[in-house]
């Protein structure tokens, strides 16, 4: 049952399920089965930003002055973010576009993935500004065992879904409508559901852990241009995780596709397991980040607690019980950095007094301060 770029079958385009119905033909948004996706598109478009607009000239000086173990934390975190957005910039398109059946959802997927390409471009912008040889850092993403291990776990479900879709879409129509084809389709739906869960984990947990590291530097007034970019990214990611939560919920309710509802019920344990494994992997990653020493305000322990906090929060959003006793956020300053109503302003600038302190300091050449520690 091969993919059709413009499906010429006669069908009601508004009665299709989200996935595995007819392939989309006319890109029309006059009526929508799920207007939520149209609203997500509008919102994402209103967020449009360009990395080049963020000034990173201060970050280079900051980076050079960082102790070696903090440079390791900063760069490893940036490599991880680069990996995650490399995946997100293409995988929703490759994995989901061949199987999507609603025009508004198709366009949401494309809009979503496009915004991820902006994130990827921003990492190049950051590295070019901060490092003399950004190439080495990029090269290490495929060579460094700690990063490669992360890549395996974030792409596993995507790749499985893509492989199964390719097999299904290259089989004959006859086979697809027979008993084996029906069974294969059910397994394909299962692969889709688990992919959605793992995407939610990627964007709603793994990314937030990396945001914590980025903001921990800015909390100490270091790498603030970087933090500014990460705030734009965080605003986009909040929207993406909302999109995925909607899809997961529509699947679980079973009204969109009853078979998907059954699968969601069958895979409830797997869902929790995926969240649990991700939390463990993120805690392991925290140990790698801080292997040569921690930084003021953040260490492997605190980051591990944040992992547990954010994991339980995301589970609750999907109507699941907490895995770690729903601990409080151990990084109270995270909320201030994540706040997107003031995304153009650094949190400390919202407080007049500290803003003035910052204004005076910014006129002083960083070199003139020498070893002076604030």
């Amino acid at each position, binding site marked *: 049952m091969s993919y059709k770029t413009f499906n010429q079958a006669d069908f009601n385009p508004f009665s299709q399920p989200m996935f595995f119905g007819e392939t989309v033909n006319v890109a029309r948004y006059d009526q929508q089965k799920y207007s*939520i996706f149209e*609203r*997500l598109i509008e*919102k994402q478009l209103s967020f449009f930003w360009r990395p080049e607009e963020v000034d990173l000239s201060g970050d280079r000086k900051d980076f050079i002055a960082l102790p070696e173990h903090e440079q390791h934390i900063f760069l490893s975190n940036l490599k991880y973010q680069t990996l995650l957005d490399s995946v997100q910039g293409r995988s929703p398109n490759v994995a989901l576009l061949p199987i999507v059946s609603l025009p508004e959802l198709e366009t949401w997927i494309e809009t979503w993935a496009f915004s991820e390409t902006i994130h990827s471009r921003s990492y190049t912008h950051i590295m070019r500004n901060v490092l003399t040889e950004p190439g080495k850092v990029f090269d290490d993403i495929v060579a460094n065992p700690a990063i490669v291990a992360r890549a395996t776990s974030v792409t596993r479900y995507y790749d499985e879904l893509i492989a199964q879709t390719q097999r299904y879409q290259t089989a004959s129509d006859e086979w697809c409508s027979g008993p084996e084809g029906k069974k294969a389709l059910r397994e394909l739906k299962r692969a889709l559901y688990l992919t959605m869960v793992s995407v939610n984990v990627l964007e709603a947990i793994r990314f937030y852990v990396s945001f914590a590291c980025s903001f921990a530097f800015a909390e100490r007034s270091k790498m603030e241009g970087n933090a500014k970019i990460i705030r734009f990214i*965080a*605003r986009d990611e*909040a*929207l993406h*995780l*909302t999109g995925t*939560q*909607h899809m997961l*919920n529509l699947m679980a309710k079973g009204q969109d596709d009853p078979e998907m509802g059954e699968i969601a019920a069958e895979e409830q344990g797997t869902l929790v397991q995926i969240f649990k494994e991700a939390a463990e992997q993120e805690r392991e990653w925290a140990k790698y980040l801080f292997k040569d020493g921690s930084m003021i305000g953040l260490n492997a322990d605190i980051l591990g607690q944040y992992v547990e906090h954010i994991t339980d*929060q995301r589970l*609750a*959003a999907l*109507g699941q019980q*907490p895995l770690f*006793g*729903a*601990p*409080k*956020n151990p990084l109270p300053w995270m*909320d201030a950095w*994540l*706040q*997107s*109503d003031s995304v153009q302003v650094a949190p400390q600038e919202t407080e007049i007094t500290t803003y003035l302190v910052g204004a005076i300091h910014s006129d002083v050449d960083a070199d003139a301060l020498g070893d002076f520690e604030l």
Partner: protein
Amino acid sequence: MSQQRSDNRSTRKVTLFPQRDKTVLQQLEDQGFQIPYQCREGYCGACRMTLISGRIEEVGDPIAFCGANDILACSCKVVVDATVEFWD
């Protein structure tokens, strides 16, 4: 008023009264509660909490996912005395 739901964290139930110019989030903040939020405009879901009783109305066309008994505190106002429950 609080109910133990897990080993180290409890939830809190608070009853709010209609207030024209304040969202549920603002009302709770006025009472000194620290409610997590990210966007304050209904798209991130960080302020999601449970509505136990009463009635609220949505403001500002929120798009964050919200379960059947959930509300987005940043994007609703109390219409009829409402009891909400959230992690303390």
